[in-house]
């Protein structure tokens, strides 16, 4: 039977040509518009953070592959490490010191990805797990987002990212619109008192533009068939539903759905983070459930939590539930009467 293992080959004998690398390359392409708009509003620090996280992720991936005795070629350039690195870089405050992004990327690759068995086996989204580590360990550094404007282009970005002698460049940093509104509301202020500031933050921060750009890239991914509609649609529907309910309940104490859609990592999360195939459910119905719950949790964390944004924790929380969701959303098999 030894002979059989080499000569016996099952149909199908042709292949569509799809590959993991191809999927990831298209994801990277679709991220481009969002990256460009982010750079426009937040300065060259964004590119620096992406470069740091991506290089660190690739280096950690290569190191783990060699430690585990796996082939470099099919895995290192399959794009999975690069996508994780880029997502992580986008999540970083543009002026964060270099070792923060490096630490997160190494943690994402070594602990979250390879300790669970490498590509395809990780329970959690590596980029978000790395980001969550930083949020928990270095909350202040992670809250220091620059106030958008011309200053981001004139600031000493290199000095901030590669600090020497403990020098700190935090002149341009301030609260994002999300943090500002949340802190204000939790401080028992009324939304109407914050409105002008919120509006200013919105406009100046360009968060709406960044979200629009990621939405555009996400729709391209959807049209190209790289991702399916269930997770983004569920995510946005869950986000809108919960924020609308809260807003209708007390418009003075809860921001509108529009505010949630246009701020923070909403679109990046809906189209690029929650759609990570490995850590999300596989069944179509399961993906819808996953998206709905993740979107709902995002609003709850944003409103009642302490972190700058809720996307990372919402996605990680739902990652943990993905196997369970898959189990209870099995499709009905052709000719069978029930779904189990």
């Amino acid at each position, binding site marked *: 039977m030894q002979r059989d293992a080499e000569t*016996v*080959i099952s149909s199908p004998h*042709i292949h*569509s040509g799809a590959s993991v690398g191809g999927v990831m390359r298209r994801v990277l392409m679709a991220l481009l518009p969002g990256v460009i708009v982010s750079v426009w509003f937040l300065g060259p620090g964004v590119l620096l953070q992406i470069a740091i996280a991506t290089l660190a992720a690739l280096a950690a991936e290569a190191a783990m592959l060699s430690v585990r005795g796996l*082939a470099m070629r099919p895995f290192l350039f399959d794009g999975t490490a690069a996508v994780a690195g880029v997502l992580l870089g986008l999540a970083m405050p543009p002026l964060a010191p270099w070792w923060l992004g490096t630490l997160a990327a190494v943690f994402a690759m070594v602990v979250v990805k390879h300790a669970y068995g490498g590509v395809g086996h990780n329970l959690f989204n590596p980029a978000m797990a790395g980001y969550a580590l930083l949020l928990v360990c270095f909350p202040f550094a992670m809250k220091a987002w620059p106030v958008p404007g011309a200053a981001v282009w004139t600031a000493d970005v290199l000095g901030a990212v590669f600090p020497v002698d403990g020098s700190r460049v935090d002149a341009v940093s301030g609260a994002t619109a999300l943090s500002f509104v949340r802190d204000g509301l939790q401080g028992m202020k009324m939304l109407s008192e914050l409105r002008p500031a919120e509006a200013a933050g919105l406009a100046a921060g360009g968060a709406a533009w960044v979200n629009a750009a990621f939405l555009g890239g996400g729709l391209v991914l959807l049209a190209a068939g790289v991702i*399916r509609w269930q997770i983004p649609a569920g995510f946005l529907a869950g986000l809108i539903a919960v924020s609308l309910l809260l807003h209708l309940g007390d418009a003075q104490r809860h921001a509108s759905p529009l505010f949630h859609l246009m701020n923070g990592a909403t679109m990046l999360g809906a189209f690029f983070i929650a759609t990570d*195939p490995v850590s999300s459910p596989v*069944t179509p119905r399961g993906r819808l459930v996953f998206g709905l719950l993740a979107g709902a949790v995002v609003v709850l964390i944003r409103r009642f939590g302490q972190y700058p944004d809720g996307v990372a924790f919402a996605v990680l929380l739902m990652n943990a539930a993905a196997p369970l969701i898959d189990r209870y959303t099995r499709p009905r098999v052709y*000719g069978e009467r029930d779904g189990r």
Partner: protein
Amino acid sequence: MEVAHARGGERVSAVLRGFHGGVRVPRSKEALQGAGSRSAALPPLLIYPLQAHVGTPARPVVDVGRKVCRGELLAVPSSYVSQAIHAGTSGIIVEIAERAVIHPGGITDTCIVLQADGEDRRLEPAPPLDLGRATPEALLARIAEAGIVGMGGAGFPSHVKLCEGLSNAVRLLIINAVECEPYIACDDCMIRERAADVVLGARILMQALAASQCVIALEDDMQLAWDALSSCDLAGAQIVRVPAIYPAGGEKQLIRMITGAEVPAHGLPIDAGVVMHNAATAAAVADAVVRGLPMTERLLTVAGAVRTPANLRVRIGTPIAHLLDGCGRSAADARVIAGGPMMGTRLIDESVPVVKTTNCVLRLPAGSEQPAVPCIRCGDCVEVCPAQLQPQALYEVARAGDWDGVRELHLFDCIECGACAYVCPSRLPLVHYYRHAKSEIEALELEQRRAAELRSRYDARLRRLAQAGGAAAGLEGQVEPDAGEGPAPAPAPDRATMQAEIAAAIARAKARRAAYTPPAAGGDGDGTR
């Protein structure tokens, strides 16, 4: 979605439904969809495997050395699900022996080998049946005698399908001309050239089934075939065109599209009120019933890396190497496949013969084989699976050897269409895992059935011995009456004679053993010495 189940299929749905999943594969058959057929050269040897894909092997009725004409019976069905085999040309039976057959493992099977004499004399055809008067039984008998089996799929004997359909009062007949696999265009060609025979065959099949409705299903890119059929007197049959999405020609998918009903799991089309026959089968039925010709020839597509791709009229039993010689091989390094690229069998040996179900011989140039990488759970396989299974979950459990797990995930509803493996970005050999799991489970079940049988025999013996023991306590030597042919203690008529006989036998055995050492026995030393 609520789906009508058993017996819902008697009505043709007013609108064409979709089926779940499916994938658009390159058609690779445009050139052959306009071309005519031609006859393949007669090979020097025709080879007929006795074992068909399903059922029991046919029983040969000719001996080596027998001279036969084309159409003469070589083997008869050995059971209800079995087929008759007829000589494809005139010649002499030179061998009934093991030959390589179309099989993924390249195994051999018993075959009748016919050497052509080149004269190609034909046996007098059987008298045509009068369609006005023929009963379903007469038609079924003729179809069985002609050795007709399904020419598109698994090669199920056609008369068995009809017989089951007749006894289940099936009313809808579907003629399947949906060639959803890439490259294959022989049914398209056959319909263009013999549309009238297909319609006639469909009429005969309806009569044999006592069916009231007939649908002929084509793909929407088979314009010329549609024109040819439309110009015939359809006599109530309806032509339906389905989208060219793989696997639209799958039995279960086509039934779903046309009737809106589903074939129940582990069921047959008749459970959905449908009998389905391939278009080529319909034409073969017309040949058998009105021309008295048994099935000795079929149309098949030779495509891929060959100089002249063609739809060839080929005698059943022709070695595939002979067809490839005729068409010319155009790339040195290629995989030869019997059937289509999605479900066909990769051949280890090109000398295997064409059988009644072989609709295509394909030479695929050896592509750059990319290694499989781990599953990323992208879910593309779930999207395309026409059986609505979870291929990625099945893969995980099949790989782990968890046979209970694969059954729980409905592995046996998998039709092995290959859509999942075709789209898999990780290039996992998904179908291979499913086939491996299926054959392991089937082997295990066989083993368990045998163990259960042996256990009951062992228990029966223990019971009998216990009863015999009880009886012996009261009445020594008396054997329990219903011991059957069991181990009755030998009544010794004459002790001395017996002993002499035994001594003589032992001496004989010793002499034999001295002269000849038997081959090493399979058992260990324990009980044999």
